[in-house]
């Protein structure tokens, strides 16, 4: 309870300081949303020419795009502390966290909150809603629940990637940019049906970095495409849990990394 109320205290302060320059905040919000609208517009253009991609229509791809977009934007909003952790380590901010009577994972998590990602989230939600209106998905309570679990899982998955990037700072101080291949690249990849990729690629992003589990497989299920894809139904239904598992493993990695922290400077 203490942790939760303290978290909201932190978030409140963060939001307030970001709202301090209201005009610049609104402008960025607007810019973010419009850039991402352009983003989806590119996909739509592609479909204008080809109509279909590996048996997926534009709005089915829009559904994929919406889910991965929402997950990534929320992960960026709440997991920002891990995303910018490198900066914090270099400045010695992690030393400060270590002398406070709170867990390090919790503190890094609570340290940042990027409100302006709201623009990006809104854009992805709109795409998802439009896609839904163009498709005929038989929504039931179970499916809505499944969608919510999927979104949660996707958020955890992307936060997990940020945690890996942050943990690598304990060794390199300059964070490895490689993790961006999986975060920004993941959003791009996840916007298209996985069946278009090569088998080793699909397997890597299912079993090692479980991107497909939080986006492609759940979408197969919700769009009623499981049978035509040749993936097992039970596998598809369980797939979203991979995101939670992934975050759990990265948290262990984090804990292991903290013990190897060497601090900087003085």
């Amino acid at each position, binding site marked *: 309870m203490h942790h939760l109320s303290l978290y909201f205290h932190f978030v409140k302060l963060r939001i307030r300081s970001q709202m301090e320059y209201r005009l610049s905040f609104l402008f960025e919000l607007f810019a973010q949303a419009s850039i991402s609208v352009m983003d989806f517009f590119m996909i739509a253009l592609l479909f204008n020419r080809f109509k279909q991609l590996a048996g997926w229509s534009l709005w089915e791809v829009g559904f994929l795009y919406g889910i991965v977009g929402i997950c990534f934007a929320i992960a960026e909003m709440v997991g920002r502390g891990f995303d910018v952790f490198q900066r914090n380590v270099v400045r010695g901010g992690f030393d400060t966290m*270590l002398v406070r009577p709170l867990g390090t994972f919790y503190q890094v998590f609570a340290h940042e909150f990027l409100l302006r990602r709201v623009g990006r989230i809104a854009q992805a939600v709109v795409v998802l809603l439009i896609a839904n209106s163009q498709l005929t998905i038989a929504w039931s309570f179970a499916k809505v629940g499944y969608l919510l679990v999927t979104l949660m899982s996707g958020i955890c998955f992307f936060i997990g990637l940020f945690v890996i990037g942050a943990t690598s700072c304990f060794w390199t101080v300059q964070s490895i940019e490689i993790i961006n291949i999986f975060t920004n690249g993941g959003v791009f990849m996840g916007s298209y049906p996985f069946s278009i990729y090569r088998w080793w690629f699909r397997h890597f992003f299912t079993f090692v970095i479980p991107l497909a589990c939080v986006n492609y497989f759940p979408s197969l299920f919700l769009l009623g495409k499981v049978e035509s894809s040749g993936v097992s139904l039970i596998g598809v239904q369980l797939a979203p849990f991979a995101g939670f598992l992934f975050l759990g493993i990265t948290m262990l990695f984090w804990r292991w990394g903290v013990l190897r922290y060497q601090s900087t400077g003085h």
Partner: protein
Amino acid sequence: MIEVDNLSKTFKIYHHRKGFLGSFVNLFSRKHRVIRAVDSVSFTVQRGEIIGYLGPNGAGKSTTIKMLTGILVPSSGNVTVNGYIPHRQRKENAKHIGVVFGQRSHLWFDLPVQESFELLQHIYRIPQAQYRDNVEMFDELLNLGDFFQTPVRQLSLGQRMRADIAAALLHNPDVLFLDEPTIGLDVVAKARIREFIQKINAEREVTVVLTTHDLDDVEKLCKRVILIDNARLCFDGKLATLRRLLSTERLLTVDYAEVYTDINIPDTHVTFQEGTRVQYRFSPEEISTADLIGAILQKFKIVDISVAEPDIEELIKTVYEDNLTLERKLAKSIPPDTQVN
């Protein structure tokens, strides 16, 4: 209160390659060299003591402090603070210590001081009454009121340091770690902070571990000092003892009435000569001050004469320059309090 036993810390310094490909290779390459930052250091600190933990840059002061505060995990040896092992019981330990790093604020950069304090109240779960009393007391001693509503980033260095020290004491810690608390401050600000530390130490029995380059800090605050050089402990005892051990050498400055050519006096060294002014270094064990002055008066006409003990800054410098000398001196005559433990 603090027990440090055979504490060592080694760092692995990795060789970094530049560029994208380089950073990829860095992931897998294990090329490194090992640096010993703290080497088999042992000491004990009693409740209510103020310890000056001194040494030149890179001697291992901050690394020691970081192990005591739970920031770094020791490579070997044992540490307990308040009975807690800092790196294993980090959170428990954190509740009972206060930490201030002079080089860097622990407060939130874009928050006003007051909000930082309220956040700390929340983090440490400080009861409202205690919080109010502490803020009132710190305000009285440090005049926090002048800048209580100012964002930390806009504070002057002196204000920031006052805010940081007050912040570190809000939760009534038993031990206060101060790493260079007066660095970069003017004389008035320094004096104010020293007074505050003294007062907190006296009234609340807060144990203070202080690292500093400012020897005034040491003289004003610490009865006991620990010297560390090259990662090793080289002195632990009373400040007065250190001074006595080292101040066997004195400086005698004479202004002669005229320029003499042969100004050498047996058992002394001429450290400089500039016109009629000459400075001799001598050891009272070899020649007493009175004999030296007598010898000079016999041979030359003088205008003025003065004897000085080298100041402590110079003394400590000589310790660092010639660590062996000190060890030899310690071995020759170990006064009881150098063995303090």
